[in-house]
């Protein structure tokens, strides 16, 4: 059966060059980069090389990169580490209602432990209002945590405006850029970011590795205490192979952003147009323009996203009904809820997230398979019948 993968926001295939980069560290180069001897030396260079590659992609200094095990760790480290270190300055965090669970759940945990959190609402396109952000800041505010691009809808937040506000009020700015990295240019200087989180497997790197940009001079308590790795910011023996892979993936992403993602954007737009033309009563979720170039989130009225995904899978199409992290639950996505999408439509929200390996053929296959499935499921839907 034909297989079409359109769930790049969930994860991406490891690029062949990345795999090549990693293999020696599973074979002959087994050393611990913290060791002084030859075996350690053989691999410490690879870790530092990767640090440079990551730094180049987001325009920071290599010394400002801290390797982690994943995006969630990066978010936890940034939030908990900041709250702990800035205890004497305040206890207030401003974030949004549409963050990734790695941020939202951490905020809820911090609320239980004495923090106050303001969750900024979003409009129908999933966009925040910078004026509201400014109003939310108090003397107690120590951190703004707002993602670069939303994982479900692709909506891009005005990070440069946010960065300017953070600077004006001298509040630390953390951004979860897991979805933006490799898809659009990300520059921590332009956006005046203090903490930026990225993850390897969303950019053609391996799973189990991520990085946090920590601006020089940012005081933060480690999440993982132990040895002196990562300038005391993150203990634990380096996952050398994965770090090398992450570095290579970032290098490739930097070289290819323009070409790859223009092509991906064209494919995404072709899919979006095709769906809107072929199927009635479809709603776009997310910002029409300010959106990740690969992401299309649409609701098919009267249908449950879960049914649609199962039917897709039977036809070899991999898509998602929201974040892979929340797909265990049938609660309508918190992002749809925050955007005011009515419940029936929220339940049917379906995310196509494309990547550089997709082709026009893939898009046309989806456009061929989708309409009859939607029609059949609508015929079976109690909601649709009521309406007819």
């Amino acid at each position: 059966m034909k297989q079409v993968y359109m769930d790049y926001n969930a994860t991406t295939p490891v690029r062949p060059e990345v795999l090549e980069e990693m293999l020696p560290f599973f074979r002959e180069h087994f050393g611990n980069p913290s060791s002084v001897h030859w075996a350690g030396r053989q691999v410490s260079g690879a870790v530092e090389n990767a640090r440079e590659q990551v730094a180049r992609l987001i325009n920071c200094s290599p010394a400002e990169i801290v390797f982690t095990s994943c995006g969630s760790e990066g978010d936890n480290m940034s939030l908990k580490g900041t709250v702990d270190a800035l205890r004497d300055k305040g206890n207030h965090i401003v974030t949004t209602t549409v963050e990734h669970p790695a941020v939202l759940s951490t905020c809820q945990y911090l609320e239980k432990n004495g923090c106050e959190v303001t969750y900024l609402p979003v409009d129908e396109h999933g966009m925040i209002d910078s004026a509201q952000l400014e109003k939310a800041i108090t003397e107690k505010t120590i951190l703004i945590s707002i993602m670069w691009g939303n994982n479900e809808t692709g909506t891009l937040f005005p990070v440069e405006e946010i960065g300017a506000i953070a600077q004006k009020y001298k509040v630390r700015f953390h951004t979860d850029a897991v979805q933006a990295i490799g898809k659009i240019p990300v520059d921590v200087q332009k956006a005046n970011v203090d903490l930026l989180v990225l993850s390897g497997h969303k950019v053609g790197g391996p799973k189990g590795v991520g990085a946090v940009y920590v601006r020089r001079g940012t005081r933060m308590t480690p999440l993982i205490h132990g040895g002196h790795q990562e300038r005391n910011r993150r203990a634990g023996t380096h996952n050398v192979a994965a770090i090398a892979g992450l570095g290579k993936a970032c290098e490739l992403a930097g070289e290819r952003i323009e070409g790859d993602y223009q092509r991906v954007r064209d494919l995404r737009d072709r899919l979006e147009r095709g769906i809107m033309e072929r199927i009635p009563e479809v709603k776009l979720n997310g910002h029409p323009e300010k959106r990740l170039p690969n992401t299309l989130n649409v609701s098919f009225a009267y249908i449950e996203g879960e049914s649609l995904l199962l039917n897709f899978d039977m036809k070899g199409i991999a898509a998602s009904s929201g974040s892979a992290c929340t797909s265990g639950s049938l609660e309508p996505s918190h992002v749809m809820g925050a955007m005011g999408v009515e419940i029936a439509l929220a339940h049917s929200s379906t995310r196509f997230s494309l990547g550089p390996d997709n082709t026009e053929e893939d898009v046309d296959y989806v456009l061929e398979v989708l309409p009859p499935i939607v029609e059949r499921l609508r015929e079976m839907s109690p909601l649709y019948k009521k309406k007819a």
Partner: protein
Amino acid sequence: MTASKKRIVVAMSGGVDSSVAAALLKEQGHEVIGMTMQIWDYSSFTAKNGETFGTCCSLDDVHDARRVAEQIGIPFYVVNFEKQFQRAVIDRFCDDYFAGRTPNPCVLCNQVLKFELLLRRARELEADLLATGHYARIAEEGAGYALRKGHDRDKDQSYFLFTLTAEQMTRVRFPLGGMTKEDVRGHAVRLGLKVAEKAESQDICFVPDGDYVRFLEEERGSGQMDGEIVHAYGQVLGRHRGIYRYTIGQRRGLGLSWPEPLFVVGLDADKKRVIVGERELLERDRLTVRETNWLVPVPGEPIEARCRIRYRHGEVPAVIIPLAGQRAEVRFAEPQKGITPGQAAVFYEDDRVLGGGWIE
């Protein structure tokens, strides 16, 4: 085989029975799809390792089901029915106990989750049939289908299936109906299924430690339901800490001194009273049921049948009198002990299920 090759969704729990059901259908050449219902937040409790036996089916683990599906090489999906399970099964479970009834959640789960929601999911995938690992049989009979006991009388689960409608019976199959548990275990071993050696337990899936009182109090809070223990003839004998702690026929844990053994013979939710009495007061010669489902044409007049009033109860002769409003009266040839509101009364003719309803 190709001619009768069908697309069949199998409800997989991760236990031996549904795993073997899926594997056998696959072996027969059908296009099999495995589905597991996620009906409970697994992070909120730790299930004992084993499948259920005294109740209807097992809720082992999504992971076990997934591994079996991988092993036999079929697509596998987890469908999330947590909300519906809470509403249709758990809320009613609690309501029943607090109203002085002793509920049967397995029947409700079959009725609302498996044979309505899961069947709908199966149909959305253009499946011809939904199969489960129940020990019961569905066979074409005349113009329609008949539900019969499983061949293994010790494992027979037809009691839990009395809510099946004619429409559902055209689409539901029980591949293990003709087998014994031994046969099934034999197949599991022959097929090398990883779940072949699982033990069996007797608990309700969402109360894995069997402490349903604690479960109820966690769901609804404790207190408010304490009251008097009263003899059926009126004498107040003591106090209790909530009628939901008691069930009809219960003898232990009453903490009363009385010349003769006393049993719970009634629960009065309005007065918060537990009513007790001597053994003979447990006996009744009739009962009524509501929400009666007939798996045969609704009888126009009283019929003779055998009636089972709880899962582990040998059927006894009775006359069933259909009443208006989907109710029915059951008159037993011999008085029965421990007729328990909230349980199901299921009517049989030999091994065929005629219908059933909820004891009032």
